[in-house]
């Protein structure tokens, strides 16, 4: 399977997005991923989900999940002690 190259947004572009936030900080893997999966169906197509996670694995898992499920991974901002992971709902 060939890797899909996705155009990611710059940090300032990410910071300017209007998002729906799921705060999964403090939950262990795969909690944040499951929360993201659940939440994305509540967004309109085109909407951006922002998952807050303090789990190391999640920032690797969410881009993979987005690619597998046909959503668009936009990028991640590393804040102090947690990550903000952005995914646009495409379908």
């Amino acid at each position, binding site marked *: 399977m060939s890797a899909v190259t996705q155009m990611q947004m710059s940090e300032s572009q990410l910071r300017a997005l209007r998002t729906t936030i799921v705060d999964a900080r*403090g939950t262990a893997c*795969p909690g944040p*991923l*499951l929360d993201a999966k659940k939440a994305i169906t509540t967004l309109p197509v085109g909407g951006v989900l922002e998952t807050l996670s303090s789990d190391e694995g999640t920032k690797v*898992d969410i881009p993979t*999940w987005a690619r*597998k499920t046909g959503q668009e991974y936009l990028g991640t901002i590393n804040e102090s002690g947690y990550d903000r992971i952005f995914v646009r709902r495409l379908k």
Partner: protein
Amino acid sequence: MAEKMAMILFSGTVDKLMAGSIMAGGAVAMGMDVDIFVTFWGLVAFRKDMADKNQRMSQDFAEMIPQFGKAMAAKKMPSWIENLKKVKGLGNVKIHVCSMMSDVMEWKKADFVDLVDDVIGVGSFIDMAKEAKMTLFI
């Protein structure tokens, strides 16, 4: 049709039940269906009178068990069964009880937690596993 993960949950210690429950969560998150075949000590753990009180842990690193328990409580990790309940609510996860083990022990479906979908024979499970992309034995 969604890809499938099959899992044989043989072990009844909390650590391995937790591993199975988390693997099921990962599969569901990735869009897979999951069929779990519960047998032997795994089946004991799914009994209504055991599910909440079972504290058994495998003894691989016995000295670390208290530390692990404390860390899990401090991080508010859900129990394996709470996690499995959540995972079931998010995807197509079926939990099948082994009819051989239930027959031997004379346990009925009503003896198991409500998460259990049905009682099936190993042949049916093998047929499910045959269609799965991956099968785990835990």
